[in-house]
């Protein structure tokens, strides 16, 4: 609910902000007008190339053998029918399943055609055939998710709705165009690139089906990078969430100067991963002029080679990252703790629950939406945001194996991906395949967490 405080801003303030923003944005883009014209031309070229692309797709379908055409259609249709049958119970169950079959067959073709049906070719290796079936099934679900929402019935009321749909499309147009052009299109291009063999500056490409993915799974350096990323991310998430929860409980006490304490605790969130990386580089400097090294030398007579020892270097990355996101987590846990109803805690106290029981049985479950949100945010940070810290601290090192033939100890997936993609002669298709795997990993974890939140909220009423 909006509160009175929302309305405290005076009109002149609003107007000044609006005028300032407008002038800034118009001026900014007017100064780069010739670049925007280039974008227009580029778009026009792209649209002019569409008929040829459609023709190529049609030619591809015309050349398919009946088996390669029918098997994925049946798989998509079967998945669509079955999933819809279970997802949407109700009187129209069989009719919905039939619609689901049609939509599944259709949307199963998106990934399948993207792969040029190569996994259904008789000569494809068994591993690729299985992966192809899984991808068709996954792709079949894409159109079904919104369809199920429609089948379950319209929930929004008609009250307070503006009538002209045309205006709605106009309002959505900038968002949809931008997402389509700068997120969906390059996303599809990444997937397409991951199926081809290509060396960085050269334009030649060769279609290799899932070959890049097979190469990745067989590559020990990639396997190490994968395990390193999971381990470092797990450490970052576990430490930062636990520490943030403890600190937030402490900082939610009503004591004097609490605003000052809170400001100090959440401040590092405003710093970038690069800056926290260079700060920790200074802290963990080797030799007697490094502050932590000097301290340890004074106490124990020696200090480790922080960034040259593989396992310690990983912990330094974890430390810099935890320090960087701790404030963000504390902030949200503080907000969550403020929303815990006091009467529930008092009721538990009257029932004889002690302080720990009240925390673990009442407060912690009530905080779970915040925990899940933070889990998603922290996993995302561990997989993507950490790039700046790695680049500042270790550049992926120190080397593993005698001469680094096993990769680097902190060569995390996101870092390796862009090292592989932009060094001269690098295999771009392989880098794109890494990007797709990274996406699947993080999206899978995120969906898993979303699913759990939804269940909890539904049952919790």
């Amino acid at each position: 609910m909006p509160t009175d405080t929302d309305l405290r801003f005076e009109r002149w303030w609003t107007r000044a902000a609006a005028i300032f923003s407008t002038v800034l944005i118009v001026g900014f883009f007017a100064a780069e007008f010739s670049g925007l014209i280039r974008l227009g031309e580029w778009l026009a070229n792209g649209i002019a190339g569409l008929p040829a692309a459609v023709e190529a797709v049609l030619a591809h379908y015309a050349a398919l053998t009946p088996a390669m055409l029918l098997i994925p259609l049946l798989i998509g249709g079967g998945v669509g029918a079955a999933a819809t049958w279970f997802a949407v119970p109700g009187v129209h169950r069989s009719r919905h399943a039939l619609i689901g079959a049609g939509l599944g067959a259709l949307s199963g073709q998106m990934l399948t055609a993207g792969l040029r049906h190569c996994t259904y070719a008789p000569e494809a290796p068994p591993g690729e055939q299985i992966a192809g079936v899984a991808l068709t099934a996954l792709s079949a679900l894409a159109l079904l998710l919104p369809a199920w929402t429609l089948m379950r019935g319209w929930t929004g009321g008609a009250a307070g709705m503006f009538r002209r749909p045309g205006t709605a499309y106009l309002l959505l147009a900038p968002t949809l165009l931008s997402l389509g052009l700068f997120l969906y299109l390059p996303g599809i291009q990444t997937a397409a690139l991951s199926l081809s063999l290509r060396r960085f500056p050269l334009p030649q490409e060769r279609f290799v089906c899932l070959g890049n993915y097979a190469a990745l799974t067989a590559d020990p350096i990639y396997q190490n990078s994968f395990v390193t990323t999971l381990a470092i991310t797990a450490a970052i998430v576990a430490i930062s969430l636990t520490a943030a929860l403890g600190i937030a409980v402490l900082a939610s006490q009503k004591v004097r100067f609490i605003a000052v304490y809170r400001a100090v605790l959440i401040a590092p969130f405003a710093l970038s991963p690069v800056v926290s990386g260079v700060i920790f580089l200074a802290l963990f400097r080797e030799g007697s002029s490094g502050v932590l090294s000097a301290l340890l030398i004074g106490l124990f007579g020696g200090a480790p080679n922080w960034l040259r020892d593989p396992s310690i270097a990983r912990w330094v990355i974890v430390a810099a990252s935890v320090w960087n996101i701790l404030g963000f987590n504390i902030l949200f846990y503080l907000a969550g703790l403020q929303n815990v109803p006091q009467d529930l805690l008092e009721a538990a106290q009257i029932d004889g629950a002690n302080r720990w029981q009240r925390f673990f049985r009442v407060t912690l479950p009530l905080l779970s939406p915040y925990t899940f949100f933070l889990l998603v945010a922290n996993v995302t940070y561990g997989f993507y945001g950490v790039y700046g810290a790695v680049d500042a601290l270790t550049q992926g090192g120190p080397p593993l194996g005698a001469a680094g033939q096993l990769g680097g100890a902190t060569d995390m997936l996101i870092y390796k991906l862009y090292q592989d993609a932009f060094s001269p002669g690098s295999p771009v298709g392989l880098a794109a395949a890494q990007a797709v795997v990274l996406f699947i990993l993080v999206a899978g974890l995120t969906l898993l967490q979303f699913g759990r939140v939804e269940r909890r909220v539904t049952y919790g009423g």
Partner: protein
Amino acid sequence: MAAKRTKTRWGVHLALIAVCALVALPALYAVQMATLTFAQTMVAPPQVFPPGGDLLANLTALFQRQNFGTMLVNTTLVALVVALGKTSLGLLAALAFVYFRFPGKTVLFFAVLFTLLLPTEIILLPLFRMMSDLGWGEAHPRLALTVPFLATAAGTFLFRQHFSNIPRELAEAAQIDGAAPLRFLLAVLIPMSWNVIGAHLLVQFIASWNQYLWSLLIVSDPAQQMIQVGVKQTMSAGLQTDFGLLMTAGVAASLPPLILFVALHRQFMNGFSLTQDK
């Protein structure tokens, strides 16, 4: 009873001071190093106190030799445009999703929802190619840093959530008065959403200010770089890393978002707690 309360309060203060010290020490040490000359950063044991007198000299060096002035202006402009753009587009999209019925709403909603899973880090390879085709990396780095990032799924959902908590009667009243949707947005919705808008602007500004990878890849002219890359460049400015200079760079690059964040963090919390509880 009273005695016990004071005792626990002191415990809380002590614990808070300890935690704050732990969190603040790395930053304080960075500030300390920023006041030292190169020679002073090389002594053993390190000079942790007192501060040296070279902060100004370090700053001057950054502005004169490392283009920090241009980079700060660039970063401010880019971060402001991205934050304002995302907020405006998010408000418009949320208006459409909450106050309109139109064919395809569910499908479009899912199309926006799905992009929450698709972070920009995944798509930088083709985006890099697209920008090379457009020639933006060399000729229009500011466009390459802003135009692809103007839409926001997270912002759209934040505003959508907030709007759906606003009583429908307000919209009905506006419609009876014959107000157009945009007028309703400007005169009713936005004035009721300052906390959320402020929080969104703040988060997007900080995120944009702190982004590193894309500017590292796409901006070819070192003088036109974003500030985070500037910090990293300071690391390798000489034969050996000058930690005094590097820490000054880190502090200079962090002060604007830090000041904004500390000044506005209460609005930030209000903006999110209003929507999080539903």
